[in-house]
């Protein structure tokens, strides 16, 4: 007996809006056409507008002489430099303040975050006040406060306030002695490198011994000893030393020394203190997310206090802390663009500000600025994804 074929034939395609696949296709087509029309309209308008204003376009302006001064640069800059050099100056200044700011903000943030969890009422209270105050005030306002109300209100150069170590603070920033290493100083770096290698070897050896015999070795303190000892030993033996060139007040200004401008200081203070408040909350959340049972289980297994933190609590807390922490780092980098408002010559100030005003190439300049931040962001998120994949909770 032949059975009639039983089965589901796929429903026949209908060219009607009741068919989800067809409907999706229509929607997308409509959206795509709308977007294309919108883009064409914008491009067309822009071309017409540019023509009407007699503006040219293109990136050739990068090889023209910039002709303006920049108050703070990491490498040689004068009025005859090109616009692409201005771009580089802005970029390096942004990276400089962001890099230092990230380190400072991380240190303050972790200290404050842990302090907020303290059993000590005064300590946790102070940490709470710090976080709730700085988090709820706009960063730009804080920058203005540091720059206009604190650093610019310092005495004039002649009445500079003397700080320890031959440093001075006045309206024009902080003047510190400039360290000048002598020719043998390279050996100190060699010593430092050797110390790091030695520490790695020591750690491996100590771990192996712990696993075989159960005897512990004070790795942390001996590492510090190695680091300081080897570096100094190499310095002493080879005769490396550092002389300091202190700032000296002459009639109008300081000579010699290293001048840290108030714009940089204000931006650094503002960025680090503000971001630290957010990092502190991230850290607190991360530590609280490790359930008490984990600590108790570690105690039940007989782990020492230090090991309990290092092997059980911190790794789990870091899994929660690191993703928001990186986004805070990214925020700090993006927020460094607020330096434009207090005259710190970072990317937005030098490039989107002065360069744009002088060349009038709005589209090219803004596109380049955005591309820089976009690249930084994408790099960070790529790193983040890699880290997440590494520490992810392995589940069935």
């Amino acid at each position, binding site marked *: 007996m032949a059975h009639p074929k039983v089965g589901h034939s796929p429903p026949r395609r209908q060219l009607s809006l009741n068919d989800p696949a067809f409907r*999706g296709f229509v*929607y*997308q087509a409509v*959206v*795509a056409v709308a*977007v294309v029309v919108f883009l064409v309209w*914008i491009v067309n*308008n*822009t071309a*017409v*507008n*540019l023509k*009407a204003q007699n503006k040219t376009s293109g990136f050739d302006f990068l090889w023209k002489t910039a002709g303006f001064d920049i108050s703070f640069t990491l490498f040689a800059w004068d009025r005859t430099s090109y616009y692409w050099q201005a771009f580089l100056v802005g970029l390096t200044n942004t990276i400089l303040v962001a890099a230092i700011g990230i380190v400072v903000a991380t240190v303050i943030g972790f200290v404050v975050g842990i302090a907020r969890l*303290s*059993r*000590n*009422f*005064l*300590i946790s209270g*102070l940490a709470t006040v710090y976080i*709730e*105050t700085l*988090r*709820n*005030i*706009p*960063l*730009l*306002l*804080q920058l*203005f*406060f540091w720059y*206009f*109300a604190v650093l610019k*209100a310092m005495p004039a150069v002649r009445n500079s306030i003397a700080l320890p170590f031959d440093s001075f603070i006045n309206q024009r920033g902080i003047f510190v002695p400039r360290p000048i290493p002598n020719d043998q100083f390279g050996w100190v770096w060699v010593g430092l490198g050797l110390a790091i290698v030695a520490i790695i070897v020591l750690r491996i050896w100590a771990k192996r011994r712990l696993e075989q015999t159960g005897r512990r070795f004070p790795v942390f303190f001996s590492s510090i000893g190695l680091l300081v000892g080897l570096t100094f030993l190499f310095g002493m033996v080879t005769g490396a030393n550092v002389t300091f060139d202190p700032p000296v007040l002459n009639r109008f200004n300081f000579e010699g020394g290293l001048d840290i401008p108030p714009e940089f200081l204000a931006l650094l203070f503002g960025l680090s203190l503000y971001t630290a408040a957010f990092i502190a909350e991230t850290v607190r959340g991360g530590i609280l997310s490790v359930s008490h049972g984990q600590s108790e289980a570690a105690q039940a297994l007989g782990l020492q206090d230090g090991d309990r933190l290092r092997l059980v609590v911190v790794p789990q807390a870091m899994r929660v802390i690191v993703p928001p922490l990186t986004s805070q780092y990214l925020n700090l980098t*993006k*927020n460094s*663009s*607020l330096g*434009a*408002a207090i005259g710190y010559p970072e990317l*937005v100030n030098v490039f*989107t500000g002065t360069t*744009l005003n002088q060349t009038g190439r*709005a*589209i090219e300049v*803004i596109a380049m*600025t*955005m591309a820089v*931040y*976009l690249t*930084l*962001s*994408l790099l960070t998120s790529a790193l983040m994804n890699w880290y997440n994949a590494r520490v992810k909770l392995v589940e069935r």
Partner: protein
Amino acid sequence: MSKFAFVRRELAPSLPPPVRNTGLIVWVHRRLFATPGDTLLTVLAGLFLLWAVPPLWGFLVGNAVPPGGTVEQCRVENVGACWAYIASEIEFFIYGFYPMDEYWRPNVVFALFGVLAALLLMPKVPYKVPSAIGFFILLPIISIVLLLGGSFGLKPVPTEQWGGLLVTLILSVVGICCSVPLAILLALGRQSKLPIIKTLCISFIELVRAVPLITVLFMASIMLPLFMPQGTTVDKLLRALVGVTLFEAAYLAEVIRGGMQAIGRGQYEAGQALGLGYWKRMGFIVLPQALKHVIPGIVGNFISLFKDTSLVYIVGMKDLLEAVKTKNDALEWAAPTQAVTGYVFAAAVFWIFCFSMSRYSLFWERRLNTGHKR
């Protein structure tokens, strides 16, 4: 003979009273002096407070010149905050260059906003739908008519004359109200199965999130006029609004997407099983749960939007911060503590708004905590 081997014949000695674990002394011991390390920290923190609080008190209250004081009082040596300066310029800080005779118009808008917001925000007050209509539809219309003027015999006041807290509040309220629907659409688009829509939403969100707000504002203020047909002028305030809204929508979209991802697959499938279409499924099943999950994140975004509105200063808008800065640079009230006083005032205003928002979100979080946490 008794069958019991032991019978107690005298009273048992009374046990010592239990160690107190409540009360002031125990609290002080436990929270301040539990260990030698704690004691050290307490002493250090106490010394810090002794060092910091008296000068702060002296600056804010003790040596301060109260409202109504004169410039000369603010110019003496070691003077505290010059509150007289704030009091005399308060109208500029609130209204900017808005004509003085027309202050009642912003005042009516402030009052309406306050009443409607209170009606919406207090959970016990009934009539949520009428107040929502009032807040989201009537209030914007009334505000535009009243503030701009030019109709009903009102004197026209161009947006160039608006300033101070008025502009800050307009930017943030409009930014909040416009970015939420946009963010929901973007989040839905990012989760959508239609490739073109998904790609568009992802690229928009990632591009905007990757760049600082300043560049978006620069783009809105410099490039928006270039994008428009010749002859159209876009109001400066409107440009800033567009920039702030687009920027905030991208951030908010990611928060909402996080909430949507926390909703189990079963919820989507249950909606499908009930025969609901896409919009009904999203609107009645997924979004209400998703938004509830991410209230802290959403309010956090509102707070950062409110703070971010201060950035419009850089593209030349006149908000509260700009008003304070302008008056700080003016010579009329020039005094040693003028700048600090101005910034402390502005900081206090921003702080009050942000802090109350975060407390309000905490309140809702507790209220909506319908048993997701153990």
